[in-house]
């Protein structure tokens, strides 16, 4: 008897979440540690040649070529309303994320390691958290001695809601 057997498409989430741990790529901006779910991160880049985009919002540093794909470079410091660093645009590390098929590179001060953290420890944003972080954060993890702020990447890249241009 003929029967159609559907091919087993493994859910993409199976790998990353082992039971109740989630993996994050950590990075530093202005001394504060941030984290982005590892599944969202495509690449970590070193210094890049960035083309300026005239008339773009100031948080958009420009665009760069990543293996044939055009990636929009975002200056996260500006997005977080932090003072801009005096270094060259394009110098420094950046984390490339994929948002709805578009690639964005988030420029940070430093990129740290990948941490695997138990989901249970994930907390809502405490009221003491700086308002700046709070707007773009989904929550925090308390690690020894420091706070890891989990970045809300869609929010970060959503320029329409905020007061951009």
């Amino acid at each position: 008897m003929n029967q159609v057997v559907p091919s087993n498409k493994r859910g993409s989430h199976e790998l990353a979440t082992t039971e109740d741990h989630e993996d994050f790529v950590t990075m530093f901006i202005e001394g504060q540690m941030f984290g982005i779910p590892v599944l969202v991160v495509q690449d970590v880049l070193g210094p890049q040649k960035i083309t300026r985009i005239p008339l773009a919002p100031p948080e958009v540093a420009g665009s760069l070529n990543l293996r044939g794909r055009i990636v929009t470079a975002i200056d996260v410091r500006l997005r977080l309303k932090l003072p801009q660093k005096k270094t060259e645009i394009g110098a420094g590390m950046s984390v490339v994320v994929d948002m709805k098929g578009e690639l964005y590179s988030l420029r940070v001060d430093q990129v740290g390691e990948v941490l695997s953290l138990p989901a249970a420890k994930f907390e809502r944003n405490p009221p003491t958290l700086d308002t700046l972080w709070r707007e773009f954060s989904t929550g925090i993890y308390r690690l020894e001695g420091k706070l890891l702020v989990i970045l809300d990447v869609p929010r970060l890249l959503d320029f329409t809601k905020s007061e951009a241009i």
Partner: protein
Amino acid sequence: MDDLLTEFLTETGESLATLDVELVKLEQNPAPQILSNIFRLVHTIKGTCGFLGLPRLEAVAHAGENVLGKFRDGELQVTPAAVTLILASIDRIKMILNHIEQTETEPEGDDKDLIAALNAHAEGRDVAPPPAAAAPPPAPAPAPAPAPAPAATPEPVAAAPAPVPAPAPVPAPAPVAATPEPEEHAAPALPAQVAQQQVAAAGAAAANQESALAAQTIRVNVELLENLMTLVSELVLTRNQLLQMVRGKDDSEFATPLQRLSHITTDLQEGVMKTRMQPIGNAWAKLPRIVRDLSVETHKKIDLQMLGAETELDRQVLELIKDPLTHMVRNSADHGLEMPEDRKKAGKSEVGKIVLNAFHEGGHIIIEIADDGRGLGIQRIRNKAISNGLATESEIEQMSDQQIAQFIFRAGFSTAEKVTSVSGRGVGMDVVKTNIEKIGGTIELKTIDGKGTTFTIKIPLTLAIVSALIVECAGERFAVPQISVLELVRTTATSEHGIEVINSAPVLRLRDRLLPLVSLRTLLRLADSAEEQAETFIVVTQVGNYTFGIIVDRVFDTEEIVVKPVAPILRHINMFSGNTILGDGSVIMILDPNGIAGGTGEMAAVDNQQAAGAAASRGETRAEDQQSMLVFRAGNSDLKAVPLALIARLEEIDVTDIEASHGKPVVQYRGKLMPLVTIDSSFSMKTEGQQPVLVFSDHEHTMGLAVDEIVDIVEEQLKIELAVNKPGLIGTAVVSGKATDIIDAGFYLTQAWGDWFGSDKDSRKTQEGLRVLLVDDSPFFRNLLTPLLSVAGYEVTSVESADKALTLRDNGSTFDVIISDIEMPGMNGFEFAEAVRNDGPWSGLPMVALSSHATEQDFERGREVGFTDYVAKFDRDALLQTLAQTLSTKGAV
């Protein structure tokens, strides 16, 4: 969802689309072929419904089939009422199908009313007369667009207009493998196969016909094609990179294989692009039905003509323009075309025409939507614009009709008196324009009150890979689509093509036009340059009918680039239409000429108008007196000039060839003796080397005017400032900004011949003693033509105005022929001609018009008012010939 059901929905959906078109065709022309097509389609639907257990559908289809059967058997006539009824049943089926698609079950309720109506009609019981004014559209003119092929035949490798979820193999075997929708399974289950064959059997008749065709075509999932397209784009990019790398090295072993690769890539690119091309008829498919319904609803008679339906364009583009096109056709039907009675009163035929015309032109597809209705109603638009606060009274005053018409593209603008279900809500045209511009197209309109309106849409044929000119500004590079670039102009601080500033807007004088300019630096707010630019380049760009120039620092070369859309956060910047990666790996933005034109927009539009106005008034006088002048020096350092038109050739004569005759210099020139004349006695010819000579010639006579040097040839508006009473000189004018003496060519001509050939007047034949009246306000021309005509043997009287001429007439002077200028202050040539012809002793005289304007309309006008002939001012030969002809005809009569 069940495979079977899905296939059923797809196929039936297509059948219904076909039915719409076929029914409209049937209404216009009840041919048995169309009828049996329709019957078969409905019969198939009924059969399948029954098989699948969809009773409601089956009932409706059955009732419809009944009526159609009666048509086919000739028992019932195909009337508009009947067709409306059938169309209603089609709509009902569509509705039910929709519901099934959402919920997999038929909707609650039944169609007793519809079925009863259908049955009543079938039995001839309903006596309702067809709605009064819904007269059937008249016998069709050129056939409406070819309907999409009957459902069973898949389009050749193209997606059908309705979104295609999965490929449905037509009648027989081997289902074509293609990417299935997520809900479906890869391989059709056996029950599906069985059902397929059932369906196939049910539609046997159709199937047989189309199976032959089906074998040559194949259904492919659209996503697959999109992927292919992207891959090919990447391939092109990589090829460009390779080419760039090899470009430097002349002797590389890679050169030849790379060349081959390049050709193949280009061919592949073209091939894949073709797979995405679809005939525009697909977008037009629904229109006949829509127009028919509109015509019934609005009680108007409408004839829809679709030309060029086979013109192909990219599928993506097709999807995007479908709605705009429909919207515009509805507008034409609803607002543009008048009621039949009004049309009759206006002297038009009762049937309004809407014509769709599509064709390719230079890398674009042009789509025209024209109607012969009442036009847009400029007055109403004017009022609406003012009342909506879009412009002030004074601004409107300055605008031309066509400019005012543009207001309809503003959001929220609608001059419809009432909002109908069809249109009038004012959300239409701005969306249409935006959609069209999104794909890089333009839309223009032309409207004439009372005559009709025509929209012209121009869309680039390919979206993905374009040729672009790479330019640089403030150290940054940008790409400009080659298709919009007309030319490049290089300007330096000292060049003649300088950038001028009129009303604080930079413009460039390019040939005979003033070109508004925009600085890319300013527009994109780039860094200011530290030093003055030694040279700048202007990219002359055209968007629709608007031409302007973009100022950039440098221009590189043209490259084929792959257009990638900008990131969503940058989409609102309308200066850019995308970005791309160049051969060297750098990312650059692609400029959008539309957006840039918009940037110059408000600021330039007003300035442009004023500048244009200034230029126009200058231009008018220019056209009037604009002449090509040859500027030279002879005898001293003063500049002299003569109309270029009089000069036959510029020569350099070897002094050794100059001989003497009767003490005067001559030279053997082209087999004849040509006398050489000097400007005045102070001039001495060269004694060695080459002597520059301006050669004038007239019939068999040639004369050479010796000069020192030829300075320039310029186009200039000739205005004699200082008149001079010296023989050989007419006066002084400003030519190229310098005071220049204008010589009297006629004087020198007579100098050469008068003394020289002595009494050759006798050798003149029939024109002897004939009297010519020359009317021209310009002393220059009178001066020029009088000697010309005298030498030809006429007796010339010249006057400076038509009034003076008429005074002569009233005083009793008579002539044999009148030559008159057209552009004169006071009474112009046309009016003069009318005055002469209307009454008086001269009414029978031949009149020749002389003018620097020589268009068809001018000729027409000339003939209308009574001129016997029309000659261009500078064509001396033509003038003499015309005179001779005119007079000889007169003589013959």
